[in-house]
């Protein structure tokens, strides 16, 4: 899928480091990250909690929390250094080019407002049609069964899977060039997980956008992604095509990660693709 001529990467972090300065002390979150994401690529960033993978995803949209300070390096999105962008420019970038899929879908919706009202508020500034008919069609595009009923509900009245579909519909309606999904299925049940993942990948491939998928679920990542980046305590310890990284892990840390998947006899045996 990736174009053979090395097209300019849509996202590139060079020597990027950041640390959390709180009253409890200084904790280094990222330590010299170099990462490029090509257009249309499905990239997965795996690692345990605290490895800094979420900080990378926040850095791309310049959404780092206040206590997190960038100490070195830069982040370029679509060729522009986002640190130098004025507030309006970064807002425009988020609005037109970036898309975020939340980890906790229900919490990402305004609890005091019905779904329909929230969709109208989010889509109207983009000039998208917000009449009942197009909203129903939008929800149908993410396989929500009775869209007109769902539109009338409040966020706490919909299931996790349903809320995630709404969030995906909301994000993809803006046709982002780069989609960042930070553990999109972490708060969902097993059966619903696969449906959501297939939906995300299908929509991403159809729109030609790049996907940056943060996860700690190696099994799912293996099935959908082109390339995998393994992170441990703020550093990238390994990077490469999905099959190669999971079957012949070079870094020790990756080996322990892979070994932790139950039911795998020996990580080095070749799995039928």
């Amino acid at each position, binding site marked *: 899928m990736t174009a053979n001529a090395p097209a300019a990467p849509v996202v590139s972090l060079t020597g990027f480091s950041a640390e959390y300065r709180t009253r409890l002390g200084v904790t280094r979150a990222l330590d010299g990250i170099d990462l490029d994401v090509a257009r249309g690529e499905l990239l997965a960033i795996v690692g345990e909690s605290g490895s800094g993978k979420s900080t990378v995803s926040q850095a791309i949209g310049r959404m780092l929390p206040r206590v997190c300070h960038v100490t070195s390096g830069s982040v370029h999105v679509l060729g522009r250094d986002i640190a130098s962008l004025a507030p309006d420019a970064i807002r425009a970038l988020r609005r037109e080019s970036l898309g975020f899929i939340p980890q906790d879908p229900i919490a990402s919706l305004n609890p005091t407002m019905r779904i329909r009202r929230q969709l109208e508020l989010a889509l109207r500034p983009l000039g998208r049609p917000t009449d009942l008919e197009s909203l129903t069609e939008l929800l149908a595009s993410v396989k929500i069964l009775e869209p007109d009923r769902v539109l009338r509900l409040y966020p706490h009245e919909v299931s996790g899977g349903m809320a995630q579909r709404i969030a995906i519909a909301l994000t993809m309606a803006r046709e982002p060039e780069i989609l960042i999904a930070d553990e999109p299925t972490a708060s969902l049940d*097993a059966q619903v997980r*696969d449906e959501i993942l297939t939906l995300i990948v299908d929509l991403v491939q159809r729109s030609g956008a790049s996907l940056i998928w943060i996860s700690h679920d190696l*099994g799912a990542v293996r099935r959908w992604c082109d390339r995998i980046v393994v992170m441990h305590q703020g550093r990238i310890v390994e990077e490469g095509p999905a099959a190669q990284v999971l079957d012949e892990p070079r870094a020790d840390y990756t080996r322990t*990660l892979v070994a*932790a998947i*139950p039911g795998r006899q020996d990580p080095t045996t070749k799995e039928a693709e």
Partner: protein
Amino acid sequence: MMSASHPDTDTAPVLELREVSVAFTSGAGAKRRTVRAMNAVTLEVAPGETLGLVGESGSGKTTTASVALGLKRPDSGEVLLLGEPFTRSRRANAGKLQAVLQHPHWSLNPRRKVGESVREPLTVARRDLSRSEQRQRVTEMLEQVGLNPAFAERYPHELSGGQRQRVSVARALVTEPRFIVFDEAVSALDVAVQMQILALIRELQAEHRFGALFISHDLGAVERVADRVAVLFRGDLVETASTEEFFRNPQHPYSQTLLEAL
């Protein structure tokens, strides 16, 4: 009422749940929903055996844990610890059962030294021991869980997550209980540290012969530490099998989806 099938006391089940049901009601009026956390769950834990209990969030794992620990009285069914039903006062069972819970950050009282936390169960169950004898047992336990006894003088915030869980295991074992519940005991730890703690639990069980109920959503951890596996799905016990049998070919469709999802 001794169960007939285990006449010999030392193989009598440490914990027995017979047809235990628990339901929670949330909301009220038109939107009143009763959630059946446990419906007619029956399971046993034999001495020296670890029963792995797996299930997703909302499957009733945590309710089962609090019922097994005597913290929650079931709506119906019987709960027997060492053949006796739970009495109102927890002092009676003090020392016979213990727990290692999920959050290493909150497993120890941040304002008390680690040694004092480990010694606390002894002050209830083993009043016969003098203070220095109790301290001596604490030192032994810390060594058994692979910690330097000098840690007794430290505060929990000076320890890592893994070390704090080791202290929890030490506290759980200090009164030589016959039954321990591990409720998501390693889920919050890094993979490498998880492996060490799971190995530690296996070792200590071989030596102390306590019965254990290991509750987790992580099949990998259960595979490493459980002798038998029981699967909970929305309050129903859908399958119970030996670990090796369970991972080779799960019977129940839900168990299959769980294993496939890996």
